[in-house]
Protein backbone atom coordinates (compact mmCIF):
# COMPACT_ATOMS: atom_id res chain seq x y z
CA UNK A 1 0.00 0.00 0.00
CA UNK A 2 1.24 3.52 -0.78
CA UNK A 3 2.02 5.69 2.24
CA UNK A 4 2.01 9.47 2.01
CA UNK A 5 3.69 11.82 4.51
CA UNK A 6 1.69 15.02 5.01
CA UNK A 7 3.02 18.13 6.78
CA UNK A 8 1.25 19.62 9.78
CA UNK A 9 0.59 23.32 9.49
CA UNK A 10 0.21 25.71 6.60
CA UNK A 11 0.40 23.18 3.75
CA UNK A 12 -1.95 20.56 5.20
CA UNK A 13 -5.34 21.71 3.89
CA UNK A 14 -4.18 22.13 0.30
CA UNK A 15 -2.21 18.88 0.41
CA UNK A 16 -5.31 17.00 1.48
CA UNK A 17 -7.35 18.74 -1.24
CA UNK A 18 -4.82 17.64 -3.85
CA UNK A 19 -5.08 13.99 -2.85
CA UNK A 20 -8.85 14.20 -2.50
CA UNK A 21 -9.14 15.44 -6.07
CA UNK A 22 -7.34 12.22 -7.03
CA UNK A 23 -9.60 9.91 -5.09
CA UNK A 24 -7.64 9.62 -1.84
CA UNK A 25 -9.43 11.10 1.14
CA UNK A 26 -7.29 11.97 4.17
CA UNK A 27 -9.58 14.76 5.42
CA UNK A 28 -9.85 13.03 8.81
CA UNK A 29 -6.57 14.83 9.60
CA UNK A 30 -8.43 18.16 9.35
CA UNK A 31 -10.90 17.15 12.04
CA UNK A 32 -9.89 19.04 15.17
CA UNK A 33 -10.81 16.10 17.40
CA UNK A 34 -8.53 13.72 15.48
CA UNK A 35 -5.51 12.49 17.41
CA UNK A 36 -4.48 9.70 15.05
CA UNK A 37 -1.10 10.13 13.40
CA UNK A 38 -1.61 7.46 10.76
CA UNK A 39 -4.86 6.99 8.88
CA UNK A 40 -6.06 5.00 5.94
CA UNK A 41 -7.99 6.34 2.99
CA UNK A 42 -11.63 5.06 3.26
CA UNK A 43 -11.08 2.94 0.13
CA UNK A 44 -7.97 1.38 1.78
CA UNK A 45 -5.78 2.12 -1.19
CA UNK A 46 -3.32 4.38 0.67
CA UNK A 47 -2.21 5.47 4.11
CA UNK A 48 -1.17 8.90 5.31
CA UNK A 49 1.18 9.96 8.10
CA UNK A 50 0.75 13.31 9.81
CA UNK A 51 4.21 14.63 10.71
CA UNK A 52 6.01 17.92 11.25
CA UNK A 53 7.03 19.56 7.99
CA UNK A 54 10.74 19.06 8.76
CA UNK A 55 10.13 15.35 9.25
CA UNK A 56 8.32 14.76 5.93
CA UNK A 57 11.56 14.30 3.92
CA UNK A 58 12.93 12.04 6.67
CA UNK A 59 10.07 9.53 6.36
CA UNK A 60 10.34 9.73 2.58
CA UNK A 61 14.14 9.35 2.49
CA UNK A 62 14.00 6.24 4.66
CA UNK A 63 11.16 4.84 2.55
CA UNK A 64 8.49 4.58 5.27
CA UNK A 65 6.46 6.91 3.07
CA UNK A 66 6.77 6.63 -0.71
CA UNK A 67 5.37 10.12 -1.29
CA UNK A 68 5.38 13.37 0.64
CA UNK A 69 4.46 17.00 0.38
CA UNK A 70 6.81 19.57 1.86
CA UNK A 71 7.91 23.14 1.31
CA UNK A 72 10.99 23.84 -0.81
CA UNK A 73 12.42 25.68 2.23
CA UNK A 74 12.71 22.40 4.15
CA UNK A 75 14.28 20.60 1.17
CA UNK A 76 16.78 23.38 0.70
CA UNK A 77 17.66 23.41 4.40
CA UNK A 78 18.01 19.65 4.88
CA UNK A 79 19.04 18.47 1.41
CA UNK A 80 17.49 15.03 1.83
CA UNK A 81 18.08 12.30 -0.72
CA UNK A 82 14.58 12.29 -2.24
CA UNK A 83 13.17 12.65 -5.75
CA UNK A 84 11.72 16.12 -6.44
CA UNK A 85 8.75 15.41 -8.68
CA UNK A 86 6.62 18.52 -8.96
CA UNK A 87 6.28 22.12 -7.91
CA UNK A 88 2.74 22.11 -6.50
CA UNK A 89 2.57 25.93 -6.71
CA UNK A 90 0.68 26.41 -3.44
CA UNK A 91 2.00 27.53 -0.05
CA UNK A 92 4.05 30.31 -1.60
CA UNK A 93 6.40 32.18 0.73
CA UNK A 94 9.93 33.56 0.75
CA UNK A 95 13.05 33.12 2.85
CA UNK A 96 14.12 36.57 3.97
CA UNK A 97 16.59 38.48 6.07
CA UNK A 98 14.83 40.87 8.46
CA UNK A 99 15.98 43.38 11.08
CA UNK A 100 14.38 45.77 13.54
CA UNK A 101 12.71 48.68 11.74
CA UNK A 102 14.48 51.09 14.06
CA UNK A 103 17.92 49.73 13.15
CA UNK A 104 20.13 51.59 10.67
CA UNK A 105 20.48 48.53 8.39
CA UNK A 106 18.82 48.75 4.98
CA UNK A 107 20.57 45.85 3.25
CA UNK A 108 22.22 42.65 4.44
CA UNK A 109 25.62 44.09 3.61
CA UNK A 110 25.00 46.93 6.09
CA UNK A 111 25.13 44.39 8.93
CA UNK A 112 28.39 44.66 10.88
CA UNK A 113 30.73 41.66 10.51
CA UNK A 114 30.34 39.05 13.24
CA UNK A 115 26.86 40.17 14.11
CA UNK A 116 24.37 37.56 15.25
CA UNK A 117 21.66 36.14 13.03
CA UNK A 118 18.89 34.05 14.59
CA UNK A 119 17.24 31.38 12.43
CA UNK A 120 15.47 28.05 12.28
CA UNK A 121 17.15 27.61 8.89
CA UNK A 122 20.79 27.58 9.92
CA UNK A 123 22.14 26.02 6.72
CA UNK A 124 20.29 28.46 4.47
CA UNK A 125 21.41 31.37 6.63
CA UNK A 126 25.04 30.21 6.67
CA UNK A 127 25.08 29.67 2.92
CA UNK A 128 23.59 33.07 2.23
CA UNK A 129 26.01 35.02 4.39
CA UNK A 130 28.89 33.02 2.96
CA UNK A 131 27.71 33.94 -0.53
CA UNK A 132 27.85 37.66 0.30
CA UNK A 133 31.13 37.08 2.16
CA UNK A 134 29.89 38.46 5.45
CA UNK A 135 31.05 36.55 8.54
CA UNK A 136 28.17 36.19 11.03
CA UNK A 137 27.33 34.05 14.02
CA UNK A 138 24.23 31.95 13.40
CA UNK A 139 22.05 31.42 16.49
CA UNK A 140 19.81 28.37 16.03
CA UNK A 141 16.26 28.80 17.36
CA UNK A 142 13.23 26.52 17.08
CA UNK A 143 10.42 29.10 16.96
CA UNK A 144 9.38 32.76 17.33
CA UNK A 145 12.62 33.84 15.74
CA UNK A 146 11.33 37.45 15.70
CA UNK A 147 12.20 37.70 19.38
CA UNK A 148 15.89 37.61 18.48
CA UNK A 149 16.15 41.25 17.31
CA UNK A 150 13.36 42.42 19.65
CA UNK A 151 15.25 41.26 22.73
CA UNK A 152 18.57 42.33 21.28
CA UNK A 153 20.01 38.82 21.20
CA UNK A 154 20.62 39.08 17.44
CA UNK A 155 20.89 41.89 14.92
CA UNK A 156 18.95 40.03 12.24
CA UNK A 157 16.88 36.94 11.49
CA UNK A 158 16.54 34.64 8.51
CA UNK A 159 13.02 33.30 8.37
CA UNK A 160 10.08 32.38 6.15
CA UNK A 161 7.77 35.24 5.26
CA UNK A 162 4.38 34.62 3.68
CA UNK A 163 2.20 37.72 4.16
CA UNK A 164 4.69 39.80 6.15
CA UNK A 165 2.13 40.42 8.91
CA UNK A 166 4.17 38.87 11.72
CA UNK A 167 7.16 40.99 10.76
CA UNK A 168 5.05 44.16 10.66
CA UNK A 169 3.37 43.50 14.00
CA UNK A 170 6.76 43.00 15.60
CA UNK A 171 8.23 46.13 13.99
CA UNK A 172 10.65 44.20 11.80
CA UNK A 173 11.47 45.01 8.19
CA UNK A 174 12.51 42.70 5.38
CA UNK A 175 15.93 43.49 3.87
CA UNK A 176 16.62 40.70 1.38
CA UNK A 177 14.86 37.74 -0.17
CA UNK A 178 17.07 34.64 -0.28
CA UNK A 179 14.66 32.61 -2.40
CA UNK A 180 10.98 31.88 -2.99
CA UNK A 181 9.44 28.65 -1.80
CA UNK A 182 6.38 26.58 -2.71
CA UNK A 183 5.10 23.13 -1.80
CA UNK A 184 6.82 20.23 -3.56
CA UNK A 185 5.83 16.66 -4.26
CA UNK A 186 8.68 14.36 -3.24
CA UNK A 187 9.19 10.60 -3.47
CA UNK A 188 11.44 7.87 -2.09
CA UNK A 189 13.90 7.41 -4.99
CA UNK A 190 13.99 3.63 -4.87
CA UNK A 191 10.19 3.34 -4.73
CA UNK A 192 9.95 5.76 -7.64
CA UNK A 193 12.18 3.42 -9.65
CA UNK A 194 10.35 0.26 -8.52
CA UNK A 195 6.85 1.69 -9.02
CA UNK A 196 4.96 -0.43 -6.45
CA UNK A 197 1.12 -0.42 -6.28
CA UNK A 198 0.67 1.97 -9.18
CA UNK A 199 2.74 4.68 -7.52
CA UNK A 200 3.75 6.32 -10.77
CA UNK A 201 0.16 6.48 -12.02
CA UNK A 202 -0.76 8.39 -8.87
CA UNK A 203 2.26 10.69 -9.27
CA UNK A 204 1.32 11.38 -12.88
CA UNK A 205 -2.26 12.23 -11.84
CA UNK A 206 -1.01 14.59 -9.13
CA UNK A 207 1.31 16.27 -11.63
CA UNK A 208 -1.44 16.69 -14.22
CA UNK A 209 -3.67 18.21 -11.55
CA UNK A 210 -0.95 20.70 -10.63
CA UNK A 211 -0.47 21.78 -14.21
CA UNK A 212 -4.19 22.49 -14.58
CA UNK A 213 -4.22 24.75 -11.52
Amino acid at each position, binding site marked *: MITVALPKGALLTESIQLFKANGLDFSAFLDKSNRQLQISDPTHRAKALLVRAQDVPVYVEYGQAQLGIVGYDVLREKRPNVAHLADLAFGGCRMSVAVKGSSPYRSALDLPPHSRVASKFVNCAREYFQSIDLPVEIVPLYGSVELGPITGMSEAIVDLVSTGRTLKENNLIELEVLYHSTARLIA*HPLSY*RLNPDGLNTLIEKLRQQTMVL
Partner: protein
Amino acid sequence: MIYQPPSGARDLLPLDVAQKRWIEDRLEQVFHRWGYHRIITSTVEHLDTLMAGGAIDQSAVIELQDTQGQRLGLRPELTASIARAAVTRLAAVTYPQRLYYNANVFQRTAQGSHGGQQEYYQAGVELLGASGVIANAEILQLLSDCLTSLGLGSWRLILGDAGLTHSLLSVFPDALRDKVRRAIAHLDRVALETLSMSEELKQRALFLMDLRGRPSDVLQQVSSLDLSSSQRDSVNDLKTLMELLQETASASTHSAGAIPALILDLSLIRTFDYYTGLVFELVSDTDQGSRVLGQGGRYDNLLGLYHPQGQTYPGIGFILNIEELHQALLPGGQLPDQTPASDWLVAPMTDQAAPAAFAYAQKIRESANLVRVEISLDDAHNQEQIRDIARLRKINRIAWIHADGLPEIEALN
Protein backbone atom coordinates in the same frame (compact mmCIF):
# COMPACT_ATOMS: atom_id res chain seq x y z
CA MET B 1 35.52 5.30 33.46
CA ILE B 2 33.27 3.38 31.10
CA TYR B 3 34.92 2.20 27.90
CA GLN B 4 32.59 2.29 24.91
CA PRO B 5 33.23 1.68 21.25
CA PRO B 6 33.51 4.94 19.27
CA SER B 7 30.32 6.25 17.71
CA GLY B 8 29.59 4.33 14.54
CA ALA B 9 31.58 1.24 15.56
CA ARG B 10 29.96 -1.95 16.77
CA ASP B 11 30.90 -5.23 18.35
CA LEU B 12 29.63 -8.50 16.96
CA LEU B 13 28.78 -10.95 19.73
CA PRO B 14 28.81 -14.72 19.15
CA LEU B 15 25.21 -14.90 17.89
CA ASP B 16 25.80 -11.95 15.53
CA VAL B 17 28.89 -13.75 14.27
CA ALA B 18 27.01 -17.03 13.82
CA GLN B 19 24.39 -15.26 11.70
CA LYS B 20 26.97 -13.33 9.71
CA ARG B 21 28.95 -16.51 9.05
CA TRP B 22 25.77 -18.29 7.96
CA ILE B 23 25.38 -15.67 5.23
CA GLU B 24 29.06 -15.54 4.29
CA ASP B 25 29.48 -19.33 4.15
CA ARG B 26 26.64 -19.64 1.68
CA LEU B 27 27.93 -16.80 -0.47
CA GLU B 28 31.45 -18.27 -0.47
CA GLN B 29 30.15 -21.66 -1.56
CA VAL B 30 28.39 -20.06 -4.51
CA PHE B 31 31.50 -18.04 -5.41
CA HIS B 32 33.58 -21.24 -5.32
CA ARG B 33 31.10 -23.09 -7.51
CA TRP B 34 31.41 -20.39 -10.14
CA GLY B 35 35.21 -20.65 -10.09
CA TYR B 36 36.00 -17.50 -8.15
CA HIS B 37 39.07 -17.24 -5.89
CA ARG B 38 39.35 -15.18 -2.75
CA ILE B 39 41.60 -12.16 -2.65
CA ILE B 40 42.56 -10.32 0.53
CA THR B 41 43.85 -6.80 0.13
CA SER B 42 45.12 -4.28 2.63
CA THR B 43 42.67 -2.47 4.90
CA VAL B 44 44.84 0.65 4.56
CA GLU B 45 45.50 2.23 1.19
CA HIS B 46 47.11 5.40 -0.08
CA LEU B 47 44.43 8.03 -0.39
CA ASP B 48 45.48 8.45 -4.04
CA THR B 49 44.72 4.79 -4.74
CA LEU B 50 41.26 5.08 -3.25
CA MET B 51 40.42 8.27 -5.09
CA ALA B 52 41.93 7.44 -8.51
CA GLY B 53 38.68 6.09 -9.94
CA GLY B 54 36.88 9.35 -9.26
CA ALA B 55 33.99 7.64 -7.50
CA ILE B 56 35.10 8.12 -3.91
CA ASP B 57 34.30 11.30 -2.07
CA GLN B 58 37.24 12.22 0.11
CA SER B 59 34.95 13.28 2.94
CA ALA B 60 33.67 9.70 3.16
CA VAL B 61 37.17 8.26 3.74
CA ILE B 62 38.47 7.85 7.29
CA GLU B 63 42.02 9.10 6.99
CA LEU B 64 44.97 7.86 9.00
CA GLN B 65 48.01 9.69 10.26
CA ASP B 66 51.26 8.37 9.00
CA THR B 67 54.81 9.33 9.78
CA GLN B 68 56.17 9.85 6.26
CA GLY B 69 53.83 12.54 5.11
CA GLN B 70 51.79 10.20 2.95
CA ARG B 71 48.05 10.35 3.16
CA LEU B 72 46.46 7.04 3.99
CA GLY B 73 42.85 6.02 4.33
CA LEU B 74 40.79 3.05 5.43
CA ARG B 75 39.26 1.45 2.34
CA PRO B 76 35.62 2.49 1.78
CA GLU B 77 35.22 -0.28 -0.84
CA LEU B 78 37.41 -2.94 -2.42
CA THR B 79 37.19 -2.43 -6.16
CA ALA B 80 40.01 0.14 -6.17
CA SER B 81 42.25 -2.12 -4.08
CA ILE B 82 41.55 -5.13 -6.26
CA ALA B 83 42.13 -3.15 -9.44
CA ARG B 84 45.48 -1.97 -8.05
CA ALA B 85 46.51 -5.44 -6.93
CA ALA B 86 45.34 -7.15 -10.11
CA VAL B 87 47.20 -5.02 -12.63
CA THR B 88 50.47 -4.78 -10.70
CA ARG B 89 50.73 -8.10 -8.88
CA LEU B 90 48.80 -10.52 -11.04
CA ALA B 91 50.29 -9.43 -14.36
CA ALA B 92 51.44 -12.95 -15.28
CA VAL B 93 48.13 -14.74 -14.79
CA THR B 94 45.77 -15.51 -17.63
CA TYR B 95 42.58 -13.59 -18.07
CA PRO B 96 39.71 -13.70 -17.30
CA GLN B 97 40.37 -13.58 -13.58
CA ARG B 98 37.57 -14.39 -11.20
CA LEU B 99 38.11 -12.89 -7.76
CA TYR B 100 35.91 -12.57 -4.70
CA TYR B 101 36.31 -10.90 -1.33
CA ASN B 102 34.65 -10.83 2.03
CA ALA B 103 35.95 -7.94 4.07
CA ASN B 104 35.25 -4.93 6.24
CA VAL B 105 35.09 -1.44 4.78
CA PHE B 106 34.94 1.95 6.43
CA GLN B 107 32.76 4.86 5.46
CA ARG B 108 32.54 8.08 7.36
CA THR B 109 28.88 8.85 7.95
CA ALA B 110 27.42 11.87 6.24
CA GLN B 111 27.43 15.07 8.23
CA GLY B 112 24.21 15.74 10.05
CA SER B 113 23.46 12.13 10.88
CA HIS B 114 24.05 10.98 14.40
CA GLY B 115 25.97 7.87 15.28
CA GLY B 116 25.50 6.17 11.92
CA GLN B 117 27.58 3.12 11.22
CA GLN B 118 31.18 3.54 10.03
CA GLU B 119 32.42 -0.04 9.69
CA TYR B 120 30.58 -2.35 7.34
CA TYR B 121 31.08 -5.81 5.91
CA GLN B 122 30.90 -6.51 2.21
CA ALA B 123 31.14 -9.60 0.06
CA GLY B 124 31.61 -9.22 -3.64
CA VAL B 125 33.15 -10.41 -6.87
CA GLU B 126 35.20 -8.90 -9.67
CA LEU B 127 35.40 -10.53 -13.10
CA LEU B 128 38.46 -9.02 -14.74
CA GLY B 129 39.59 -9.17 -18.35
CA ALA B 130 36.27 -10.02 -19.94
CA SER B 131 33.88 -7.71 -21.72
CA GLY B 132 30.73 -8.54 -23.56
CA VAL B 133 27.27 -9.80 -22.99
CA ILE B 134 28.20 -13.26 -21.69
CA ALA B 135 30.40 -11.81 -18.93
CA ASN B 136 27.58 -9.44 -17.95
CA ALA B 137 25.17 -12.36 -17.88
CA GLU B 138 27.56 -14.41 -15.73
CA ILE B 139 27.66 -11.66 -13.10
CA LEU B 140 23.87 -11.30 -12.98
CA GLN B 141 23.31 -15.08 -12.84
CA LEU B 142 25.94 -15.36 -10.11
CA LEU B 143 24.19 -12.65 -8.13
CA SER B 144 20.89 -14.43 -8.54
CA ASP B 145 22.48 -17.72 -7.46
CA CYS B 146 23.82 -16.02 -4.30
CA LEU B 147 20.35 -14.82 -3.33
CA THR B 148 18.80 -18.20 -4.03
CA SER B 149 21.36 -19.86 -1.77
CA LEU B 150 20.40 -17.44 1.01
CA GLY B 151 16.69 -18.07 0.46
CA LEU B 152 16.01 -14.36 0.18
CA GLY B 153 12.29 -14.00 -0.45
CA SER B 154 11.57 -11.03 -2.60
CA TRP B 155 14.11 -9.00 -4.43
CA ARG B 156 14.33 -6.99 -7.62
CA LEU B 157 17.10 -5.92 -9.93
CA ILE B 158 17.19 -2.42 -11.38
CA LEU B 159 19.43 -2.35 -14.43
CA GLY B 160 20.91 0.59 -16.23
CA ASP B 161 23.70 1.34 -18.68
CA ALA B 162 25.98 4.13 -17.49
CA GLY B 163 27.84 4.24 -20.82
CA LEU B 164 24.69 4.52 -22.90
CA THR B 165 23.11 7.15 -20.66
CA HIS B 166 26.35 9.13 -20.61
CA SER B 167 26.43 9.04 -24.37
CA LEU B 168 22.75 10.04 -24.65
CA LEU B 169 23.58 13.10 -22.52
CA SER B 170 26.11 14.30 -25.12
CA VAL B 171 23.38 16.21 -26.99
CA PHE B 172 23.38 18.75 -24.17
CA PRO B 173 25.86 21.64 -24.43
CA ASP B 174 28.85 21.41 -22.04
CA ALA B 175 27.59 24.08 -19.66
CA LEU B 176 24.30 22.29 -19.23
CA ARG B 177 25.34 18.65 -19.28
CA ASP B 178 26.53 18.33 -15.69
CA LYS B 179 23.37 19.97 -14.38
CA VAL B 180 21.17 17.67 -16.42
CA ARG B 181 23.21 14.65 -15.37
CA ARG B 182 22.98 15.65 -11.72
CA ALA B 183 19.22 16.26 -11.95
CA ILE B 184 18.63 12.87 -13.62
CA ALA B 185 20.88 11.06 -11.12
CA HIS B 186 18.93 12.58 -8.23
CA LEU B 187 15.53 12.20 -9.94
CA ASP B 188 15.06 15.94 -9.62
CA ARG B 189 12.31 16.62 -12.12
CA VAL B 190 11.65 20.11 -10.79
CA ALA B 191 15.26 21.11 -11.52
CA LEU B 192 15.02 19.77 -15.09
CA GLU B 193 11.79 21.69 -15.67
CA THR B 194 13.30 24.95 -14.44
CA LEU B 195 16.72 24.73 -16.14
CA SER B 196 16.94 27.23 -18.94
CA MET B 197 17.25 25.34 -22.21
CA SER B 198 15.34 24.96 -25.43
CA GLU B 199 12.00 23.15 -25.31
CA GLU B 200 13.44 20.37 -27.46
CA LEU B 201 16.34 19.76 -25.06
CA LYS B 202 14.01 19.91 -22.08
CA GLN B 203 11.78 17.26 -23.61
CA ARG B 204 14.86 15.14 -24.26
CA ALA B 205 16.01 15.51 -20.65
CA LEU B 206 12.60 14.56 -19.27
CA PHE B 207 12.45 11.65 -21.72
CA LEU B 208 15.80 10.36 -20.38
CA MET B 209 14.65 10.71 -16.80
CA ASP B 210 11.56 8.62 -17.52
CA LEU B 211 13.33 5.83 -19.41
CA ARG B 212 12.37 3.15 -16.95
CA GLY B 213 10.12 0.11 -16.82
CA ARG B 214 9.79 -3.22 -18.59
CA PRO B 215 13.01 -3.86 -20.52
CA SER B 216 11.30 -4.44 -23.86
CA ASP B 217 9.29 -1.20 -23.53
CA VAL B 218 12.31 0.85 -22.53
CA LEU B 219 14.45 -0.58 -25.33
CA GLN B 220 11.73 0.26 -27.82
CA GLN B 221 11.47 3.81 -26.46
CA VAL B 222 15.20 4.42 -26.62
CA SER B 223 15.35 2.97 -30.12
CA SER B 224 12.96 5.69 -31.24
CA LEU B 225 15.78 8.21 -30.73
CA ASP B 226 18.20 9.04 -33.50
CA LEU B 227 21.04 6.86 -32.20
CA SER B 228 24.68 6.77 -33.22
CA SER B 229 26.11 3.41 -34.21
CA SER B 230 27.83 2.91 -30.84
CA GLN B 231 24.61 3.80 -29.03
CA ARG B 232 22.78 1.32 -31.21
CA ASP B 233 25.38 -1.31 -30.27
CA SER B 234 24.75 -0.63 -26.58
CA VAL B 235 21.00 -0.98 -27.07
CA ASN B 236 21.52 -4.23 -28.97
CA ASP B 237 23.80 -5.53 -26.22
CA LEU B 238 21.12 -4.80 -23.64
CA LYS B 239 18.55 -6.55 -25.79
CA THR B 240 20.83 -9.59 -26.21
CA LEU B 241 21.47 -9.66 -22.45
CA MET B 242 17.76 -9.64 -21.65
CA GLU B 243 17.12 -12.46 -24.13
CA LEU B 244 20.06 -14.43 -22.79
CA LEU B 245 18.81 -14.17 -19.20
CA GLN B 246 15.31 -15.14 -20.26
CA GLU B 247 16.43 -18.15 -22.29
CA THR B 248 18.73 -19.30 -19.48
CA ALA B 249 15.82 -19.15 -17.06
CA SER B 250 13.61 -21.27 -19.30
CA ALA B 251 16.47 -23.71 -20.05
CA SER B 252 17.23 -24.38 -16.39
CA THR B 253 15.46 -27.44 -15.03
CA HIS B 254 14.17 -25.87 -11.83
CA SER B 255 12.51 -22.52 -11.41
CA ALA B 256 14.58 -21.55 -8.39
CA GLY B 257 17.38 -19.22 -9.32
CA ALA B 258 15.48 -17.41 -12.01
CA ILE B 259 15.91 -13.65 -11.88
CA PRO B 260 12.61 -11.91 -11.02
CA ALA B 261 11.20 -9.39 -13.47
CA LEU B 262 13.92 -6.86 -14.22
CA ILE B 263 13.46 -3.13 -14.29
CA LEU B 264 15.48 -1.40 -16.97
CA ASP B 265 16.18 2.13 -15.81
CA LEU B 266 18.41 4.30 -17.99
CA SER B 267 18.20 7.11 -15.42
CA LEU B 268 20.17 4.91 -13.02
CA ILE B 269 23.39 6.91 -12.99
CA ARG B 270 25.46 8.64 -10.37
CA THR B 271 27.09 12.01 -10.54
CA PHE B 272 30.53 10.48 -10.00
CA ASP B 273 31.47 6.89 -10.68
CA TYR B 274 33.81 4.72 -12.72
CA TYR B 275 31.13 2.66 -14.40
CA THR B 276 31.26 2.52 -18.19
CA GLY B 277 28.50 0.09 -19.10
CA LEU B 278 25.98 -2.11 -17.38
CA VAL B 279 25.08 -0.93 -13.84
CA PHE B 280 22.62 -2.49 -11.43
CA GLU B 281 21.15 -2.24 -7.99
CA LEU B 282 19.83 -5.15 -5.97
CA VAL B 283 16.77 -4.14 -3.99
CA SER B 284 14.80 -5.95 -1.33
CA ASP B 285 11.12 -5.40 -1.89
CA THR B 286 9.07 -6.21 1.19
CA ASP B 287 6.11 -4.75 3.06
CA GLN B 288 8.59 -2.93 5.29
CA GLY B 289 9.76 -0.97 2.28
CA SER B 290 12.56 -1.29 -0.21
CA ARG B 291 16.28 -1.07 0.50
CA VAL B 292 19.42 -1.44 -1.56
CA LEU B 293 21.17 -4.71 -0.63
CA GLY B 294 23.97 -4.45 -3.13
CA GLN B 295 25.06 -2.98 -6.42
CA GLY B 296 27.50 -3.38 -9.21
CA GLY B 297 28.51 -2.53 -12.70
CA ARG B 298 31.02 -2.62 -15.51
CA TYR B 299 34.20 -0.54 -15.31
CA ASP B 300 36.25 -0.92 -18.46
CA ASN B 301 38.67 1.95 -17.84
CA LEU B 302 39.43 1.56 -14.15
CA LEU B 303 42.27 -0.98 -14.26
CA GLY B 304 44.27 1.19 -16.64
CA LEU B 305 44.48 3.91 -14.01
CA TYR B 306 46.53 1.55 -11.85
CA HIS B 307 48.68 -0.02 -14.58
CA PRO B 308 52.20 1.44 -14.83
CA GLN B 309 51.89 1.68 -18.64
CA GLY B 310 48.21 2.54 -18.57
CA GLN B 311 47.23 -0.78 -20.12
CA THR B 312 43.63 -1.42 -19.23
CA TYR B 313 41.45 -4.48 -18.90
CA PRO B 314 37.67 -4.56 -18.79
CA GLY B 315 36.02 -5.50 -15.51
CA ILE B 316 32.63 -6.06 -13.95
CA GLY B 317 31.62 -6.88 -10.40
CA PHE B 318 29.17 -6.45 -7.60
CA ILE B 319 29.13 -5.99 -3.86
CA LEU B 320 26.64 -7.27 -1.32
CA ASN B 321 26.16 -5.37 1.95
CA ILE B 322 26.24 -8.05 4.63
CA GLU B 323 24.40 -5.90 7.22
CA GLU B 324 21.58 -5.13 4.80
CA LEU B 325 21.30 -8.79 3.80
CA HIS B 326 21.24 -9.68 7.50
CA GLN B 327 18.35 -7.29 8.12
CA ALA B 328 16.48 -8.55 5.07
CA LEU B 329 16.93 -12.21 6.08
CA LEU B 330 16.01 -11.83 9.77
CA PRO B 331 12.20 -12.03 9.33
CA GLY B 332 12.56 -15.15 7.14
CA GLY B 333 13.73 -17.26 10.06
CA GLN B 334 16.50 -19.10 8.20
CA LEU B 335 19.31 -17.48 10.18
CA PRO B 336 20.43 -19.40 13.31
CA ASP B 337 18.63 -17.98 16.35
CA GLN B 338 21.20 -19.21 18.85
CA THR B 339 24.84 -20.18 18.95
CA PRO B 340 25.31 -23.97 18.70
CA ALA B 341 25.19 -25.77 22.06
CA SER B 342 28.00 -28.11 23.04
CA ASP B 343 27.34 -31.83 22.62
CA TRP B 344 29.15 -33.03 25.75
CA LEU B 345 30.04 -31.83 29.21
CA VAL B 346 32.93 -33.83 30.64
CA ALA B 347 32.94 -33.54 34.44
CA PRO B 348 35.73 -34.91 36.62
CA MET B 349 34.15 -36.17 39.87
CA THR B 350 37.28 -35.41 41.90
CA ASP B 351 40.35 -33.24 41.38
CA GLN B 352 42.37 -36.41 40.71
CA ALA B 353 40.08 -37.29 37.79
CA ALA B 354 40.96 -34.10 35.86
CA PRO B 355 43.75 -35.64 33.68
CA ALA B 356 41.45 -38.52 32.74
CA ALA B 357 38.67 -36.02 31.98
CA PHE B 358 40.91 -34.05 29.58
CA ALA B 359 41.99 -37.31 27.89
CA TYR B 360 38.41 -38.53 27.53
CA ALA B 361 37.20 -35.17 26.18
CA GLN B 362 40.00 -35.18 23.60
CA LYS B 363 38.99 -38.68 22.48
CA ILE B 364 35.44 -37.54 21.77
CA ARG B 365 36.67 -34.41 19.97
CA GLU B 366 38.66 -36.52 17.52
CA SER B 367 35.53 -37.96 15.95
CA ALA B 368 35.20 -37.46 12.20
CA ASN B 369 32.31 -35.02 12.52
CA LEU B 370 32.44 -31.85 14.55
CA VAL B 371 31.70 -32.66 18.19
CA ARG B 372 31.72 -29.80 20.72
CA VAL B 373 33.02 -30.85 24.12
CA GLU B 374 33.28 -28.70 27.23
CA ILE B 375 35.15 -29.54 30.41
CA SER B 376 33.30 -28.85 33.65
CA LEU B 377 35.29 -26.33 35.68
CA ASP B 378 33.28 -26.79 38.89
CA ASP B 379 35.84 -27.25 41.72
CA ALA B 380 33.26 -28.50 44.19
CA HIS B 381 32.27 -31.39 41.86
CA ASN B 382 28.67 -30.85 42.94
CA GLN B 383 26.70 -33.09 40.58
CA GLU B 384 23.36 -31.32 40.93
CA GLN B 385 24.97 -27.97 40.16
CA ILE B 386 26.79 -29.38 37.17
CA ARG B 387 23.53 -30.85 35.82
CA ASP B 388 21.89 -27.44 36.19
CA ILE B 389 24.68 -25.77 34.28
CA ALA B 390 24.44 -28.40 31.53
CA ARG B 391 20.68 -27.91 31.21
CA LEU B 392 21.09 -24.14 31.13
CA ARG B 393 23.64 -24.46 28.32
CA LYS B 394 21.45 -26.98 26.46
CA ILE B 395 24.12 -29.71 26.68
CA ASN B 396 22.48 -33.12 26.31
CA ARG B 397 25.15 -35.46 27.62
CA ILE B 398 27.42 -35.47 30.63
CA ALA B 399 30.39 -37.81 30.96
CA TRP B 400 31.18 -38.18 34.65
CA ILE B 401 34.84 -39.18 35.10
CA HIS B 402 35.45 -41.24 38.24
CA ALA B 403 38.65 -41.06 40.25
CA ASP B 404 39.81 -44.30 38.61
CA GLY B 405 39.45 -42.68 35.18
CA LEU B 406 36.35 -44.59 34.10
CA PRO B 407 33.60 -42.58 32.41
CA GLU B 408 29.92 -42.84 33.30
CA ILE B 409 27.54 -41.36 30.74
CA GLU B 410 24.36 -39.60 31.65
CA ALA B 411 21.82 -38.30 29.13
CA LEU B 412 19.90 -35.21 30.11
CA ASN B 413 16.56 -34.31 28.63
